[in-house]
């Protein structure tokens, strides 16, 4: 295309996607934007890990955390020296970064490989966040749609109030109430944990072991185990999902209301399509776009909020483990987990932006 401006410095060969003049240059800009975003993921993660590295050194060391109060200061200093903690900080940083680039993420203080730790606990958090999101979508989207189409009615008021309430209550408070009502008083669900003791023991011997218990229990092949795992997932998923569900509800409602007023919806109505079809097929798709945008942030928020849910419901995942490592000042473990989370968030953010850029013709770069 002759009108691809030379000054854009396109790094890629352009393929023609259409015959119209507008189509080609947009595709170039899109690909260029996405490529830059992709390339920026690594520097973002690196920046974060570096900041965390230096910050962790400010707040104390793992030996003092573990041995303080039982050994003399001299003994602690000796041990710190032996562990190599007194070397120049830049040397330690360089060693860490070069190891990182070779795929050696270090070992925790109690001698576990960081990669193993991240995978094992990450799988647990992934399962929790998955169930939580499922609940959030199941609550937020249909209820948000209902609220939007019945705007300013009593049910709209009740729903919005409930959504705000779900957001306002601290998640560990909600967790406690759920435990109290559904476990202790009603006895419908277990108090915590990911599975009953027997089931958990049995699932240790599954191959391949994913640590995503619902998958493991299906692989194991015992239906009662699958039920057990699902039973244990209910309360934590609801606690986590209520919070996000409330946010989704309000988002869907607001964006659906906006979309319902737009021109193309009026046009659809004018063509005689029923309200249900208009809302369901035409408006909802547009209204879901902002939710996708927020998803990246939501996942990050869930990872953060997960530590509270994980502690309340004995769901030992990455959030909980990160808090433990922070308490123990285990530098390497914290850096490793933060790096992983940073990469995850960056990738999610990129995917979300790419999806939105692709499907929403209004987005410009």
């Amino acid at each position, binding site marked *: 295309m002759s009108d691809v401006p030379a000054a854009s410095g396109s790094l890629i060969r352009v393929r023609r996607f259409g015959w119209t003049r507008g189509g080609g240059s947009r595709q170039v800009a899109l690909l260029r934007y996405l490529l830059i975003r992709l390339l920026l993921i690594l520097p973002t993660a690196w920046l974060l890990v570096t900041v965390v590295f230096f910050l962790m050194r400010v*707040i104390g060391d793992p030996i003092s955390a573990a041995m*303080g109060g039982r050994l003399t200061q001299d003994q602690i200093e000796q041990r710190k020296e032996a562990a190599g903690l007194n070397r120049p900080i830049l040397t330690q940083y360089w060693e860490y970064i070069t190891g990182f680039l070779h795929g050696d993420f270090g070992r925790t203080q*109690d001698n576990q490989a960081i990669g193993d730790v991240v995978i094992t606990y990450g799988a647990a958090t992934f399962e929790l966040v998955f169930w939580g999101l499922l609940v959030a979508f199941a609550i937020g989207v249909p209820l948000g749609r209902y609220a939007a189409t019945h705007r300013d009615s009593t049910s709209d008021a009740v729903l919005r109030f409930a959504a705000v309430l779900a957001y306002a209550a601290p998640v560990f408070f909600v967790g406690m109430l759920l435990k109290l009502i559904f*476990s202790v008083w009603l006895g419908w669900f277990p108090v915590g944990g990911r599975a009953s003791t027997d089931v*958990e*023991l049995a699932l*240790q*011997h599954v191959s391949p072991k994913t640590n995503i218990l619902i998958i493991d229990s299906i*692989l194991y092949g015992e239906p009662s185990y699958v039920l057990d795992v699902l039973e244990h997932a209910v309360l934590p998923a609801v606690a986590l999902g209520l919070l996000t569900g409330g946010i989704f509800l309000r988002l869907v409602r607001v964006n659906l209301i906006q979309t319902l007023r737009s021109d193309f919806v009026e046009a659809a109505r004018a063509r005689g399509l029923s309200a249900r079809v208009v809302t369901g097929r035409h408006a909802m798709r547009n209204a879901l776009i902002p939710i996708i945008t927020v998803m990246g942030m939501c996942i990050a928020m869930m990872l953060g909020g997960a530590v509270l849910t994980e502690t309340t419901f004995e769901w030992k995942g990455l959030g909980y483990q990160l808090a433990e490592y922070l308490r123990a000042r285990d530098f390497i473990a914290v850096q490793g987990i933060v790096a992983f989370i940073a990469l995850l968030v960056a990738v999610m953010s990129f995917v979300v932006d790419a999806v939105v850029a692709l499907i929403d013709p209004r987005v410009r770069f």
Partner: protein
Amino acid sequence: MVAAALAGCGSGRTDEAGSGAGLVVGTTDKIFSLDPAAAYDNGSLLVENQIYSYLLNFAPGDTTPKPDAAEKCEFSTPTVYTCKIKSGLKFASGNPLTAKSVKFSFDRMLKINDPHGPASLLGNLDKTEVVDDLTVAFTLKVANDQTFPTILPTQAGPIVDERVFPADKVATDDEVVQGKGYSGPYTITSYDKNKLVEYQANPDYQGILGTPKNSTVSTKYYATSDNLKLDLQNGAIDVGYRSFTPTDIDSLRADSKVKVTDGPGGELRYIVFNMNTMPGNTPEQKLAVRKALASSVDREALASAVYKNTYQPAYGYVPQGMTGAAEPLKQLYGAKPDKTLAAKFLADAGVATPVTLNLQYNPDHYGSSSSEEYAAVKSQLEASGLFKVNLQSTEWVTYQKERASDGYPMYQFGWFPDFPDADNYLSPFFGPNNFLQSHFENPGINAQLTAETTEADPAKRVELLRKIQTDLAQNFLPTLPLLSGKQVAVSKPGVSGVDQTLDGSFKFRFTVLSK
């Protein structure tokens, strides 16, 4: 239809793991390492108690070390402690347990000297030598160290298989579980670190703990004591051990669905005084302030109101129930707060009242009730009219950095014993180069400490231990003991044996439990 599909996916099993979890014990402690060279914490101790054997160990209910893997141990010369090992012992790996294994275990602990390990407990060990296939000789630096036999059952003493464990580095948990280089009453059949561990009775064990009364035990790890308690009340687990809050224990005692058992505990809670920075212009005034404080705290109120009797008042430096315990502070300063006496101490030394105190504590390292404890202490001290207390709390890592560098004039501290000997409450605290680092050092006390650690006659030793405590309480008061702890375990009614293991050795053994 779904069930059929699910049943069809059943190809994932590797092997049958056995018939379920057996007796389930819940705890909130965390395992640090299965390798003894790197394990110096309560969570790892619980595992070591079950899977390792020791030269000497404590039988349930006994606080004198008796032979476990050894046949006989004694001082062959004042500086050499010799142990003869039983013959025919094997590790769970199948390898024989010989004097070489013992030498290997102690050598590697000192060689690896892991920053998280208990090698400091072997401070008096010079070298370990193999005399013959079944005899081992420990050469000590200080002669006639009466505490050495009590160190053998501690976390410094597990015997490991020299063919399985690396000599110069720490083994990973997986390596330990796979290698089975241990010889205790149980073997580990399933290991999910800090989540679920399963033990099976070891038929080859020939030690002092005898045959386990159950064949399978599992330990379930909890993030909060709340969940531990709820699962116990629901019947999801059988025993809960470490740690419950006082409020929990109070309501559990009233619950007929569970049984609360307690036993002597070794934990000590006290206030440390920085001899230089504490209030008072001269050493005499500082001592007067300390004495006045000793007469003003209401330990019984702390024990009953704050801790709901899971702790008892401590009037001496060694907890009651331990050999050599004494209660000098009762006679000297009163069992109950005595305002007149406290005022007299201060007036005699010319200290102006009210004395302003900056008292520091840590909110979570010594249990979550520390804030209640110190709020009560503050109230008690201020009720006497003699003190004004500023209470402050700091997070743990900063806390013990500050306290060791004169950051706090008075601060909370606690101690959990390494081994059940009175000296473990005295030398580390008041001896030369002690860990308190509060600028307390007295040659007279040092001499008395050396005397008691090397006194072979038990009766004479007890006298010396009591005398040291009286001396400290009367003339120095470098710390103010407040409370000593009890071990508490909660169990379902059908479970028996819990009371047998809550003894003065502070080792929780699964071997005596059954349901």
